[in-house]
């Protein structure tokens, strides 16, 4: 579904991504893991067209989306839940969800809204509250729900578990799995390596802008280098 080849990008003199390759097969969950500053968010921004790459190719369903405007990438079927969630704090929960569907002209928007409310009942309870009044976990649910409102074929999630309580984190991972089972392909960026590898089929490890490892999620989880650096040396159960 998504194929990235020899992608390089950065901010002025800082080379944040050095010729990375990555591919996300249809229907899968692929995890992209790496420490703070590895370049994960930069990769998401480049895919979504928020940052122009220096070189390389980004193919989505066979089409080159390199240099395409962000709103057109969204209408092509990609959606990002950004790092830090970026809830529109001065708009209501309902308006946030409506904004997620702002490009849609079909008549199933209301049905999708109901589906989101069934998945996250708390959002329906608070639908007329301002986005800024939600707790961190609720904001993450809203960010995911909002991204789903555009009916993406490929959903990118940038550190959805960041700053959340452990119980909420496992909820979020469960939701990600459910979304995938309902047919949405997922590229998951995480520092919560243990959980991210548990739900993924395939994984990539990014270190200071270079893709140092990739393979089946199970194999990555048992890779000594990964265990050492990200899993505190213990085996994943």
């Amino acid at each position, binding site marked *: 579904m998504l194929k990235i080849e020899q992608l390089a990008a950065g901010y002025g003199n800082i080379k944040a991504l050095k010729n990375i390759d990555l591919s996300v097969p249809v229907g899968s969950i692929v995890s992209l893991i790496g420490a703070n500053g590895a370049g994960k968010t930069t990769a998401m921004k480049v895919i979504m067209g928020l940052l122009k790459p220096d070189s390389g190719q980004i193919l989505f369903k066979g089409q080159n989306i390199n240099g395409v405007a962000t709103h057109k990438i969204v209408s092509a079927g990609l959606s990002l839940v950004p790092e830090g969630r970026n809830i*529109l*704090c001065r708009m209501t929960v309902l308006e946030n969800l409506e904004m997620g569907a702002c490009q849609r002209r079909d008549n199933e928007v209301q049905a999708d809204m109901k589906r989101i409310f069934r998945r996250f009942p708390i959002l329906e309870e608070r639908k007329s509250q301002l986005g800024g009044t939600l707790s961190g976990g609720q904001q993450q649910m809203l960010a995911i729900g909002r991204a789903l409102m555009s009916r993406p074929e490929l959903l990118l999630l940038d550190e959805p578990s960041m700053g959340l309580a452990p119980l909420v984190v496992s909820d979020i991972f469960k939701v990600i799995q459910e979304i995938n089972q309902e047919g949405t392909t997922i590229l998951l960026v995480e520092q919560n390596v243990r959980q991210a590898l548990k739900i993924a089929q395939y994984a990539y490890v990014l270190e200071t802008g270079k893709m140092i490892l990739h393979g089946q999620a199970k194999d990555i989880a048992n890779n000594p280098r990964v265990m050492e650096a990200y899993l505190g040396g213990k085996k994943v159960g």
Partner: protein
Amino acid sequence: MFWQQMVNGITLGSTYALIALGYTLIFGVLNIVNMAHGEIFMFGAFVGLILATKFNIGIFGALLGAMVAGAVLGYLMERLALRPLRRRKVSELAPLISTIGVSIFLESLALRLFGPQAQSFPGVYSTQLFEIGGLKISAVQILILAISFGLMLVLRFWLSKTQLGKSIRATAENIETANLLGVDTQKIIVLTVMLASALGGGAGVLVGLAFNAIEPTMGITMGFKGLAVLILGGLGNITGAMVGGLLLGVAEVFSVAYGVSSYRDAVAFGLIIVLLFLRPQGLFGSQEQQGGR
């Protein structure tokens, strides 16, 4: 006397509110103060005047013409003076300087086209006086109140209920997020600048009617007042611009009524300074940093 001044103040203030709304909308999506807004307002006044005097078009037609002229100027400004700067990495001050350039250009152009003398609308609108419960209110005042409050209500409704309105609000809050949600933010920016400029052009006609004097330099003082209201209301806050505009109008009228007419502007701006001491973020501004850019 008090209520009479109140009516006069609210009438004047409603035109300030309209002008301030233009600043507010543009500040919301672009995070810049549009220094050419006063001159777009002045151009609107002249276009309305010409339509009313030379073409004998009624006041509503003149108002509509002024708003269209404002929108066209806004469009040209966005395409020629603002967008080219957004494409490049330039100083944050560059677009501000660019709008100052546009304002100087428009003022010189107006001098050329319309001449330096003050001109006025035909007197038909100002003669009629109505008495409502002891209050005297002129046809012009009723017209100004109805149009400016009408426009403000429509704008509020439009921003809160329509998809385009919501997209403007989303872009104003965080342009990158709006982009990620699929909003064509370039289009929204043009649309917002046109909308703001249309409101400015319309306000030009209303102020022209109220003061019965239209001249190429009228954009400067009005521009500063709108700017003051933008800050008073809380940068980028729609409600703040409306309330702040009314407040400034009322303060001005009362300072004239109670004997300090030569300090009319000083009193009004003094009041703003005092209010900002008490609430640095403006009447309706939030503590946090506003805007997404």
